[in-house]
């Protein structure tokens, strides 16, 4: 089938589709049409499949191969078996990056989701001008991982930045929030929590789905606001919470830009913001150590896959789907 063929068919397609709905047509005609539609569908999906194969699956498999090699980018990869994976066990910065990343993920994601849920509930109370508030609160999500915000963060939380200027007014001398090793990661966690917009919007949609009659019934029975939240809202919202949790967890593990910009690509000060992805990047492109970087990438994939699997298994015990 040629491309023009398909284009023609697809062009005439919509015009003729209402027809079978009214006249139903004979079974054979319908089958022919289904096959034809299917072909067209495949053809339209083809670019995506090609992209998947060459841009996603190919490189992923390539990196799996490279993870078993010593590859400096400039010379051909050399097979070294499990060496790269063994090397990780003796690499202190690998463990530093794991510690930093896990701290970041497990502190910032729950905080972010709690914050998103809280605001979603407040907004769901029928605030006037809801679309405006929704947009305002969503805005940081769009900007959060951008270079501009990371630079802004440095200005605001720097040793001589806005926050410390305000603190100085009340006589407190604040540390360099982004430049002191004890505080730098916290400032990145705050940055991530601040981008609560997209889970918030999803929570809002979820809250809208809960039928109002449940609350009416509960009110008749004299349930308090907290009891309504605890017994109605939260259980019915668990699928949404679960969805957001899985998504944000994976996102947080892949965080890169914030740390890269705020620390100038070093993961500093003193490795306190050395995210896993940042370390991977440093090995691959800074040290021409692409084999090791590929191995690091695969270990990260395993970690995220394992955590997601645990998440799904655990979900049986706390996620409530209405029809069960």
């Amino acid at each position, binding site marked *: 089938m040629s491309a023009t063929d398909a284009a023609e068919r697809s062009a005439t397609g919509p015009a003729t589709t209402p027809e079978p709905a009214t006249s139903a047509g004979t079974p054979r005609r319908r089958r022919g049409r289904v096959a034809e539609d299917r072909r067209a569908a495949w053809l339209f999906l083809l670019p995506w499949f090609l992209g998947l194969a060459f841009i996603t699956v190919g490189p992923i498999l390539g990196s799996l191969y490279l993870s078993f090699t010593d590859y*400096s*980018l*400039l*010379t051909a990869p050399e097979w070294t078996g499990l060496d790269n994976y063994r090397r990780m066990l003796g690499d202190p910065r690998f463990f530093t990056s794991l510690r930093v990343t896990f701290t970041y993920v497990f502190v910032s994601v729950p905080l972010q989701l709690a914050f998103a849920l809280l605001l979603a509930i407040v907004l769901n109370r029928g605030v006037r001008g809801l679309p405006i508030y929704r947009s305002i609160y969503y805005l940081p999500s769009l900007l959060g991982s951008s270079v501009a915000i990371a630079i802004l963060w*440095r200005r605001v939380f*720097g*040793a*001589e930045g806005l926050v410390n200027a305000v603190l100085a007014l009340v006589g407190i001398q604040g*540390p*360099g929030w*982004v*430049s*002191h*090793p004890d505080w730098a990661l916290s400032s990145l966690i705050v940055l991530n929590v601040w981008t609560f917009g997209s889970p918030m919007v999803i929570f809002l949609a979820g809250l809208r789905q809960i039928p109002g009659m449940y609350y009416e019934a509960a009110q008749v029975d004299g349930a308090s606001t907290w009891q309504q939240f605890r017994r109605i809202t939260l259980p019915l919202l668990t699928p949404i919470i679960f969805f957001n949790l899985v998504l944000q967890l994976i996102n947080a593990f892949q965080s890169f830009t914030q740390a890269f910009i705020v*620390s*100038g*690509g*070093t993961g*500093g*000060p*003193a*490795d306190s913001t050395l995210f896993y992805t940042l370390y991977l990047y*440093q090995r691959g*492109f*800074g*040290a*021409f150590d*692409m084999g090791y970087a590929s191995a690091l990438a695969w270990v990260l994939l395993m970690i995220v896959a394992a955590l997601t699997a645990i998440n799904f298994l655990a979900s049986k015990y706390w996620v409530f789907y209405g029809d069960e």
Partner: protein
Amino acid sequence: MALVGALALAATACGGGDSGATPAPEDTAAAGNGAGETTSDEQVTLRFSWWGSDARHEDTQEVIDRFEAEHPNIKIEGEYTGWGDYWDRLATTVAGGDAPDIMQHESRYLREYADRGALLDLTTVSDTLDLSELDPLVAESGAVDGAVYGVPTGINAYTLMVDPQAFEEAGLELPDDTSWTWDDFVQLAADLSENTEGYGAQDKGFNETDLQIFARQRGEDMYTEDGQLGFSQQTAADWWQVGLDLLETGGTPDASITTEVQAGGVDQSLLATNRGAMAFFWTNELGALSETSGRELQLLRYPGESEHEQPGMFFKPAMFYAVAADTPHPEEAALFVDFLLNDEQAAEIIMTDRGLPANTRIRDFVLPDLSPAEQQAADFLAEIEDELASPPPVPPVGAGEIVSIVQRINEEVLFGRLTPEEAAERFLSEANAAIG
């Protein structure tokens, strides 16, 4: 004074037209064209990649235009980024078999690429590329095992820049830089901090060149000829101790501010923002820093130059021009490098942006037209030239990584997480792993 001679030379060069007064290089090129042996009239497109500021991008493009006007059959496509992205990009394109034909290089990376066969041995194109006028102090700097992989563009030295106005405010005299010691430096920084609103000095521990000079003063070096680390653990510990002394006596800002200033680059440095009196930089940064700071900054010799065995300062090739090993047109690429290096048409645009020109004839040609800051840098280099000990060897493979290791460990020291002794031990082990 040499200036007069340079002026005369410049005058003849300009008066003589393009190829008349300038000898060898263009003549060989022309001969090559005629004979059809080295370069043909065939239409050729080459890619040239460099890092730099916007000003350099514009200037380089103009140099390319002039080259193309002279060689209508050669088209040069420029590819440029800032320093930060440059090496990621270059590594990726070279790995993809898509290396730019001509690339701007740096000594920390030159060996990395040369050892892995990515660069052309320029002695194979010596008919086209004339290297005979290079300053002997850096002429060999691109040589690895008898082959030449990079042509030094110009000369630089890492040294101290001071803001005389800050000294005036503090009521302090500029030090005698021929005799001062590291202790004097620490003391002076503390005095400056005390008597001015700004800081005495910017922390010096973020560039391994500072350690290199410190080690060279003791008769050691950063690397040995055979690509090993060339300094003792004690030297590294002493070096970090100086940094810590500066911090503890208040000569440098606290660790957080230092970290932030460092992340801001040259433009955010204490000197540039008039918040500090002294900082170490490369001489070719004097022009930019003078402009940003709005002050007439002055260059001084390193502290401790006469304290130990020998002076530690050295001339560094600011950067290199290199040619890809797999370029389909080595002769044309060499012709372009020759133009960049030896032609006055290129020089009058580039001036000292890629260091004080390594070609001595071209250096004399640009000298009369330098800005006051550039002039000062040139004079300073001329002044210290006779004092210098032998130039350091080409850094080994992995040297590009040393910078980030030094920075990281320096932060640990400043924040009090490592003692200078622990830092030295950690640095030796990590640096050995990086170049091993």
